[in-house]
């Protein structure tokens, strides 16, 4: 059971990591801005292929060894989990190393060939993009919060009838495997974590909405449509995560109060269902929408505007992955390598909304021990 779960997750990770170069805008290769006209450069295409193939094959070989080793030795579950996690970190580490290697090579290639030196470097904005933005209103993200509050009230009412030991952790089969003594804090700890995550997602939606709609200078209309789709689907995905997490955590809370609520099959199916919904939604989002909407297929075939290219803000991207720009009012910006959003480290509010809640969640987990 645990093994097949890890098999799915690791396979998912390998495919995602290997696919990244193909999910990005073609004007940004390994975190380096590539001017229009050089995006099909043969060497860059080879870099992408080498990156993907290396991760894919090393990942698959690692996974194969892991599975054979786990089955052959008839291991304990915790050993399978531990090694599975090590393997995941290993794949991420190899991806990062390879990324850095190709980031440096791409930068060097761009510099040596003086790409874009004869082009006008501009930034483009569309005055109407805000009125056409179809991101979900932040109010929608506030909707699950009253459910959490309601569950806290319900837990308070049921407090007397609850068992003396409160589950704090559930195993892969859905059965609780760690407990803590009952007290007013431990009975609602799970709901507090849920509430913090709901607020965090509300904040993420709010700040992505405020962040800039970044257009491609030479393909304005295409990139505008792609950007707006990307924003829309990002908020839908986030909303799906928020809702399904509310259902999962709410369900766990109810089974804590009423011990025989769902039966063992249901207890197992809930987290599995949650996991698969999130994995499938993420995969669909990554492959159908792509970073910045780069995989959104359009009927129009826009001729690139000659003589201009995007203003090169590579200097603000440390190692091509960390964005530090005090002047940019965006708190969340689109990633350069990967699908999704990242922080503008030049803006302290960013740390507050992402790192703050995580610290509180860790604090709650620590207090339960």
């Amino acid at each position, binding site marked *: 059971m645990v093994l097949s779960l890890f098999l799915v997750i690791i396979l998912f990770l390998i495919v995602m990591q290997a696919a990244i170069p193909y999910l990005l805008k073609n004007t940004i290769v390994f975190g380096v801005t590539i001017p229009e006209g050089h995006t099909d450069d043969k060497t860059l295409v080879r870099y992408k292929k080498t990156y993907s193939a290396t991760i894919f094959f090393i990942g698959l070989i690692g996974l194969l060894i892991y599975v054979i080793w786990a089955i052959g030795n008839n291991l304990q579950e915790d050993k399978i989990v531990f090694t599975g996690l090590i393997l995941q970190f290993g794949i991420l580490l190899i991806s990062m190393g390879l990324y850095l290697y190709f980031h440096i090579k791409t930068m060097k290639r761009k510099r040596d060939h003086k790409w874009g030196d004869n082009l*006008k*470097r501009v930034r483009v*904005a569309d005055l109407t993009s*805000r009125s056409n933005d179809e991101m979900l209103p932040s109010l929608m993200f506030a909707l699950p919060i009253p459910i959490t509050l309601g569950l806290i009230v319900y837990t308070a009412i049921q407090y007397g009838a609850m068992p003396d030991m409160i589950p704090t952790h559930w195993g892969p089969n859905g059965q609780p495997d760690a407990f803590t003594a009952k007290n007013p804090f431990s009975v609602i700890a799970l709901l507090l974590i849920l509430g913090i995550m709901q607020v965090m997602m509300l904040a993420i939606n709010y700040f992505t909405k405020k962040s800039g709609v970044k257009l491609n200078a030479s393909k304005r209309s295409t990139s505008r449509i792609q950007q707006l789709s990307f924003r829309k689907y990002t908020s839908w995905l986030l909303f799906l995560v928020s809702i399904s997490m509310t259902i999962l955590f709410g369900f766990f809370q109810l089974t804590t109060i009423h011990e025989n609520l769902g039966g063992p099959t249901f207890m197992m199916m809930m987290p599995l269902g949650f996991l698969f919904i999130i994995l499938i939604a993420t995969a669909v989002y990554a492959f159908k929408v792509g970073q910045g909407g780069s995989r959104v297929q359009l009927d129009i075939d826009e001729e690139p505007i000659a003589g201009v290219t995007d203003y090169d803000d590579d200097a603000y991207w440390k190692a091509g992955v960390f964005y530090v720009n005090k002047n940019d*009012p965006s708190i969340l910006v689109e990633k350069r390598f990967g699908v999704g959003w990242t922080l503008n480290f030049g803006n302290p509010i960013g740390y507050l909304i992402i790192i703050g809640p995580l610290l509180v969640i860790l604090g709650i987990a620590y207090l339960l021990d």
Partner: protein
Amino acid sequence: MFIQIEPTSEIPIYTQLANQLIELIASGTIKASEALPSVRSLAADLGVNMHTVNKAYHELERKNIIEIIPKSGAIINSISTKGPSDMQLDLIKLHLKPLIAESIVYGMDKEQILSLTSSIISEITEG
């Protein structure tokens, strides 16, 4: 309604931004009583400091081209039908004179300057 700025140009970004907005209004792309995006969102879209956009908006307000209304934002004023005021005319003359002088120094004659001017006018009004 695209705005294009060139961060490395010698013309300050706020001036570029103000000039582009004026052009969009002159060509009729942005119409009277329409609202400009908020300072914050336009600054985010262009990836520039909010003060830069704020400065451009205030310059337009000073020139009476937009009106900044608290809460509703920057609203475009209608194009004047009475022609420029004396003060505006003086200002235009002040900016135009050195450019025309420069053209003469470059060896342009009256014909050339007039035809260049009229071609710029059609470029703007025909979008």
